């Protein structure tokens, strides 16, 4: 059963010093990503959830080498990604791509979208001449549900949903195997969000892609992901198959996130499951990073950092309280 993962990350750590500001001196460094292990299998969609600032984007960017980690390794299809340099790295880049929350920011406003989508094809020398490139761009536009005639338009002429389709077309242009989708639908209204999610699922099935799907909507993640990873303050605190995570969330943080998800059934909601704010750009507290907000914290939680332990097939949790119930 245990095939080799397409992406295999071990011990990833990345520290930042808080950005200074007009009135704010730079504080001491903190770990935005803290000793993270993660596997993504071929043709698998792994969901990555957690409050803002938990390190999801940083982790996603490390996996495709847009950010260099301080420690740890990333293997992609068996290749040591962090050892690749220069030409070799450039050649490998076509295998892994990213889709951003707002592709508008990453599209050049003065570049026609056909050129934006065609650019990676030219860079990776996947097309021979202008005619072939245009033909391939037309195919890509059609594939993401846009009219090929739109190739000559500029980004500002597109709606949010259409821009996201352009971002997806650009990401799949060179035939990648792995895509980091960083909150690709968070800025869209539900109906357009559904259109884009369905497109991502179609492409995943048709092209056998793997995604790391970063999202804050847990209902959405439940629908499309096989496995879900929950991050808190740079750590993985729980990981399980999507079915199991929603049926039997074990970490108090996962349970709180699920409880905070708005229901679409009218009625009085329960009191907020989680008080306080996620830690931001500060040094980790002693013990479990979640303990200051945890309704179940015991003495151990204030003293020792819990290890991520296996509690079932593919189910891992970092929590002293859960660990105690196993003893």
């Amino acid at each position: 059963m245990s095939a080799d993962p397409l992406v295999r990350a071990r011990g990833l750590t990345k520290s930042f010093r808080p950005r200074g500001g007009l009135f704010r001196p730079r504080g001491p460094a903190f770990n935005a990503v803290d000793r993270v292990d993660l596997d993504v299998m071929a043709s698998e969609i792994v969901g990555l959830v957690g409050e803002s600032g938990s390190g999801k984007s940083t982790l996603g960017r490390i996996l495709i080498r847009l950010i260099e980690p301080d420690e740890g390794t990333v293997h992609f299809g068996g290749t040591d990604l962090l050892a690749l340099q220069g030409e070799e790295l450039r050649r490998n880049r076509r295998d892994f791509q990213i889709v951003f929350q707002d592709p508008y920011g990453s599209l050049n406003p003065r570049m026609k979208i056909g050129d934006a989508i065609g650019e990676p094809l030219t860079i990776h020398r996947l097309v021979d001449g202008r005619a072939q490139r245009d033909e391939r761009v037309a195919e890509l536009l059609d594939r993401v549900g846009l009219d090929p005639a739109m190739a000559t338009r500029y980004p500002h002429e597109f709606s949010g949903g259409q821009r996201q389709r352009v971002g997806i077309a650009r990401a799949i242009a060179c035939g990648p195997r792995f895509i980091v989708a960083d909150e690709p639908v968070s800025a869209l209204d539900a109906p357009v969000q559904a259109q884009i999610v369905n497109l991502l699922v179609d492409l995943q099935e048709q092209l056998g892609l793997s995604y790391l799907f970063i999202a804050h909507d847990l209902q959405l993640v439940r629908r499309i992901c096989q496995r879900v990873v929950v991050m808190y303050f740079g750590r993985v605190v729980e990981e399980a198959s999507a079915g199991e995570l929603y049926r039997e969330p074990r970490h108090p943080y996962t349970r709180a996130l699920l409880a905070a998800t708005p229901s679409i059934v009218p009625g009085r909601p329960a009191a907020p499951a989680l008080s306080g704010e996620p830690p931001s750009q500060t040094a980790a507290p002693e013990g479990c990073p979640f303990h200051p907000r945890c309704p179940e914290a015991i003495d151990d939680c204030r003293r020792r950092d819990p290890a991520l332990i296996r509690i079932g097939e593919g189910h891992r949790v970092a929590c002293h309280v859960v660990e105690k119930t196993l003893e």
Partner: protein
Amino acid sequence: MPLLEVSDLRVHYSAADAPVRAVDGVSFSLQPGETYALVGESGCGKTATGLALLRLVEPGRIVGGRIVFEGRDLLGLSEEEMRRLRGARIGMVFQEAAAALNPVMRIGAQVGEALRIHRGMSRKEAHAEAVELLRLVALADPERQARAYPHELSGGMKQRVMLAIALSCSPALLIADEPTTALDVTIQAQILALLRELRDELSLTILLITHDLGVVAENADRVGVMYAGRLVEEASVDALFDKPEHPYTRGLLRAMPGAGPADERRLPTLPGTVPDPAHPPAGCRFHPRCSERFEPCDADEPELSGRPGGGRVACYLHRREAVG
């Protein structure tokens, strides 16, 4: 008597060719103490409707309709009278709490400013009252936070400060425009719980503007669904979620990731997008996206009329059923 009665409201923005009819004949009323949600996709005119209640639609114009608040026609008030009303009787919070705060002014002074302007308090009185307001919105350690600058606060804390400012002169009506859209679900749950508490404690009437039906289900009493500048359905929350009558409302509900069987990876979609309000389609504005359209839909615009289960709906399907 309703606290607020809006009839046939029209708000236009100017554009190169035709006027942008952002709000195009909207009528609704708010009963004292209720939370009324305005929902619909981006660009449907929800914010423009909220701003019109404060007469703050610049560079647009209110080109028609009546807004009667506490028995007074707001469109007939002088600019000076309107200024006194804003902040004092009607408070407002927006999605971008951060942008609305002055970065170089302490939190306490910003909350106190409204008190000094509207209630003529001294600096010292205003500061003491500001601390009480920060306590009311459950900001931890209000004495200390009153001395902080906005950048020292998280997004959720800034939204609490905005609420304190909006509530500083005990308004009767609070307009909350996407108050939690930029926040994490955990913080959103806290702010929504706070809004419910404040409503009960202060007998507030709330106009809750949101594109997220999830926020509506648990927090509103009644809902108005807007599409392309028009109100297309209005009902109690229970009736709307139980049996949505307008195909647009049905489409919105079905597209929610939490709706339908969880093992189906694809979501039912509502194809297309909101039309350009400068050039809305003829007939029912929703007809190009509607899978249930029939003959009359592209010819004439349907009017709101009574809907089964109470409320109003603007759709020929329903008219056809009603006729036979």
